[in-house]
């Protein structure tokens, strides 16, 4: 022990050294604290974080699924209709060839949509029957991959028809008279179009996309309608798929510049009727996210506030031995940041390792389709930072309060 008589030791200025104190104390705390308590705190923080991203991901999933279903099974990225307000492309082939020259276009298919009455036994109803080239349609939509019974249409099949699950009444409830209930592959339906002679068509397959608008459709090949001279080679619309969603406006501009004779409608324009639904989901998402934020913030605040308030005596001791107030404050702010960060990491692991895979296997069944959780990277980062920020704030407040009260009150718990 250094003797007083040998003279007092001279201390070097500690400005740089003292900043070690928070890291030293946090390290020791994490090493020696009650591991169960620490695990519980981090688990609760992760639960708060998961709560924040789950609701958001669910609504993002709904919107994303809605968009994908719309593009993949209904309109494509761009829908072309006749330019001169006519009802039909008299000959769709040259338009298809021109469209396919664009490097951003991956597929294009002409469709002739005909309102028809379908009759199966005593049951009948009005649906839109669409005449397609099966080969082109396979590339333009995903319907060929959604067959639940039978097979997709073969090119040149002039007597076949595939119908959606809504048309087949597969999902109809008791008392619901919509759909040709009981119809199976191989059965015959009678199709009537306006004044044209009725035709018997054989059901080749039934598809289910889980997108109501698509499942309420029926398809035949162009060969079937070519039997009627007034319809041969005609199309009411051409659906176009592009390399990526978004950026359709640029492709439209290029097609217009190339002189493609059509009126162009991007999927967003075509989906205007659905925009209000999407907007509603976005609004609900925003509201629930706000509530989720408040709940998460209060949860995080209570957890960290209680933890740090319970260490009031420790803070008093640190002050009594001369540790500066700002270092003590930083110790608990950084500790709260570590807690929160660990909560985010655990929450991320649970969310992406357990919750997302679970809902991928067991998706939410909604009328617009099977909905999975969809995480938007920006939302994830923003919520992660929010949790850490709220955590730090929750550490700052009690630390500031305790470092400003009387040392003896803190130490003696008065």
């Amino acid at each position, binding site marked *: *022990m*250094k*003797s*007083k*008589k040998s003279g*007092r*030791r001279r*201390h*070097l200025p*500690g400005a740089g*050294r*003292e900043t*070690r*104190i928070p890291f*030293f*104390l946090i390290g*020791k*705390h994490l*090493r*020696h*604290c009650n591991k169960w308590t620490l695990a519980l705190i981090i688990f609760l923080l992760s639960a708060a974080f998961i709560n924040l991203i789950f609701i958001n991901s669910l609504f993002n999933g709904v919107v994303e699924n809605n968009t994908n279903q719309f593009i993949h099974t209904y309109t494509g990225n761009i829908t072309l209709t006749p330019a001169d307000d006519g009802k039909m492309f008299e000959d769709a082939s040259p338009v298809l060839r021109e469209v396919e020259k664009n490097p951003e276009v991956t597929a294009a298919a002409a469709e002739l949509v005909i309102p028809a009455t379908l009759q199966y036994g005593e049951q009948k109803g009005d649906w839109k029957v669409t005449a397609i080239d099966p080969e082109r349609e396979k590339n333009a939509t995903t319907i060929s991959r959604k067959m639940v019974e039978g097979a997709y249409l073969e090119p040149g099949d002039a007597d076949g028809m595939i119908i959606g699950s809504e048309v087949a009444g597969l999902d109809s409830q008791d008392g619901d008279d919509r759909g040709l209930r009981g119809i199976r592959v191989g059965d015959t339906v009678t199709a009537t179009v306006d004044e044209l002679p009725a035709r018997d068509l054989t059901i080749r397959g039934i598809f289910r996309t889980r997108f109501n608008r698509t499942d309420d459709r029926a398809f035949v090949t162009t060969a079937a309608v070519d039997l009627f001279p007034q319809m041969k080679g005609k199309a009411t619309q051409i659906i176009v798929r592009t390399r990526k969603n978004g950026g359709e406006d640029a492709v439209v501009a290029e097609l217009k510049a190339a002189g493609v004779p059509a009126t162009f409608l991007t999927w967003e324009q075509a989906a205007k009727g659905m925009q209000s639904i999407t907007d509603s989901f976005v609004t609900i998402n925003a509201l629930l996210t706000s509530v989720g934020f408040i709940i998460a913030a209060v949860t995080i605040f209570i957890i960290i506030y209680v933890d740090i308030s319970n260490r009031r*005596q*420790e803070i*008093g*001791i*640190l*002050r*009594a*031995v*001369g*540790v*500066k*107030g700002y270092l003590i404050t930083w110790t608990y702010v950084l500790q709260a940041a570590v807690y929160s960060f660990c909560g985010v990491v655990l929450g991320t692991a649970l969310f992406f390792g357990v919750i997302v895979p679970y809902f991928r296997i067991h998706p939410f069944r909604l009328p617009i389709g099977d909905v999975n959780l969809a995480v938007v990277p920006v939302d994830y980062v923003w919520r992660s930072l929010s949790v850490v920020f709220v955590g730090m704030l929750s550490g700052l407040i009690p630390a500031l309060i305790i470092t400003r009260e*009387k*040392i*003896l009150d803190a*130490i003696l718990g008065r």
Partner: protein
Amino acid sequence: MMSQNPTDNVTPAGGEVVLVDDICRTYRMGEVEVPALRGVSISLNRGDFLVVTGRNGSGKSTLLHQLGLLDSPDSGSIRINGVDVTALREKERARMRLHDLGYIFQEFALIAELTAIENVMLPAMMLERTSECRERARELLAEVELERQLDHLPRQLSGGEQQKVAIARALINDPEVLFADEPTANLDTVSAAEVLEIFRSLNRDKGHTIVMVTHEMEETVCGNRLLTLSDGKIVHEE
């Protein structure tokens, strides 16, 4: 012109380390005011071992809290090394607690999550390299015969051992004055005797200035000065 920090050591020539002048401290308990100190004045020279005694509620711990800069008097002044500490801001008081004062609590006041050596080295880490702090903490713990318990947490130590760690921590920054608030109150007889012997040795052999509060009459013989308080006033001094 060189400026002088208000807490820099400027010990008067006479070796007077602490000068307390007519301090008063009143606590408020609801509507009731309880005077804990009523005009206490003392002077402490370097190398003094002052024992402060008195009954419970006499004001002895309150006096020590004022001297240790854990509390502030309502009136009067306290000068440590010539500096009027009652006029200092909390930042400067913290600096003085770190550099010039060592405080030993009745309840040990160790950080539960730090080992013995970490508790001791913590105040020094504000000033020195970690390796130097650790080495000096090891020396101090060896001095109080705890070299085998360096890595023990407080809960793994007996009361006497915890108090020895607290003494080593108080000494780590080589303070001007050591304050001990009933350091043996929570110890068994053997541990209490060991702790008192450490204080005697620190004063006799190392020249440390010590102020110790106790209500055990047999401990009053440890020091070379004795102060008896009653109802917040000095009633006996020798």
